[in-house]
């Protein structure tokens, strides 16, 4: 049995751990998960980080690696699609639709930095299309990533925020707080892509495993959609 190192975007860490546990059980290989922000991973990979696979939080960075010839050609695919949710820990604060943002009865709206995180870009798209982007500028607090954004909201410092469905799935199901799962049609899909960085058997096996239907179900159970 051998060991592979997998660099994973922070928001997918829980899911990948579940996946790799199953993979390890099936194959006896070991999967070492390296969690981090996608920008950091990208910089590190370009400077020789010893990773076999890179699960990014977006599509852009894997594409870049592909173009720059760092990634193994033709290995790139979308492993999950994130879903954006407007969520508040308060009951009956967010309802289906964007009305709460129009009413503006809040001090802070949290979202991920649109420059850095695809969830942020998606949130920005929605705010722009509803004409709120400029109005809310002074009330927006931006997390560096979606994890931090969730903490802003969950700690109550921001009344509501655009977070990932995967972060609040359990809470929504147990009717904790209030949420609006934003229809996929209203923003560019948050495609999270993966590339192979080092060509070896186990890594390819793991990618194949992630693509398998069983895995897809598992991924969806964590709150992602699959393509």
């Amino acid at each position, binding site marked *: 049995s051998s060991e592979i190192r997998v660099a994973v975007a922070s928001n997918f860490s829980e899911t990948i751990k579940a996946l790799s546990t199953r993979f390890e059980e099936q194959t006896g290989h070991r999967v070492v998960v390296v969690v981090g922000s996608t*920008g950091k991973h990208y910089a590190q990979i370009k400077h020789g980080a010893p990773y076999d696979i890179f699960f990014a939080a977006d599509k852009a960075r894997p594409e870049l690696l592909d173009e720059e010839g760092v990634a193994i050609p033709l290995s790139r695919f979308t492993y999950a699609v994130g879903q954006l949710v407007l969520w508040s820990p308060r009951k009956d604060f967010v309802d289906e639709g964007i009305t709460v943002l129009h009413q503006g009865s809040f001090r802070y709206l949290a979202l991920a930095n649109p420059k850095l995180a695809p969830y942020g870009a998606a949130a920005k798209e929605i705010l722009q299309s509803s004409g709120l982007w400029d109005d809310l500028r*002074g009330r927006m607090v931006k997390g560096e990533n979606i994890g931090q954004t969730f903490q802003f909201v969950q700690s109550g410092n921001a009344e509501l925020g655009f977070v990932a469905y995967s972060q609040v799935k359990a809470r929504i199901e147990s009717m904790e707080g209030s949420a609006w799962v934003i229809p996929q049609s209203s923003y560019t899909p948050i495609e999270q892509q993966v590339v192979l960085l080092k060509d070896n058997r186990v890594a390819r096996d793991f990618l194949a495993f992630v693509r398998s239907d069983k895995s897809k179900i598992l991924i969806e159970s964590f709150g992602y959609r699959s393509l």
Partner: protein
Amino acid sequence: MMLSESDITALLLTFKLAAVTTCILLVIGTPVAWWLARSRCRYKFIFEGLIALPLVLPPTVLGFYLLVMLGPNGPLGRLMEWFGGASLAFTFSGLVIGSVFYSMPFVIQPLQNAFAAIGTRPMEVAATLRASPFDRFFTVALPLAKHGFLTAAVLGFAHTIGEFGVVLMIGGNIPGETQVLSIAIYDHVEALEYSQAHWLSGGLLLLSFLMLMTVYALNGRLSWGRT
């Protein structure tokens, strides 16, 4: 490559934060350091340990706990609310609190050493020359500890400028309010805008270097003692 307007805002904000934090730290730190240097209290070592403690937590984690504390359900948040104030998260004041907390040991420790090095004799002499404890503290202890103050101020100031994790967590990256330079640079790096990152870093380094050099040069000039 020019700096964007928001970069300049961030720059100014950063220096303001560092200056305010340093001042507060010197004001708070001086009596604490004096007490630590002079007291014969048996349990002094407990306080010494406590003061160095914020150092060992990763700043982001420290920031996370601060965020939780400041939130409406956190003890500090409740306290603020009780006093009728708004939450401090995502405000400049909040940043100041976080930075003060985080940079505390860098200010207190050099001051404590400087005070201890003075010994009791100069204070005794001042007492026989009619100087009250306050008076002699300001006219004898402070001037004699000036090297310690310089070190404390430099470490505190520089550390606040480079401060990142705490600010990231409780700042919310609001331009002009809480978006400081370190986060701006970080964002550029994460967003792969390397040349902007280089410019900002270079500028910050140059500016800081000039400032530090001036401080040290002045200090060397004013220095009295036999080295």
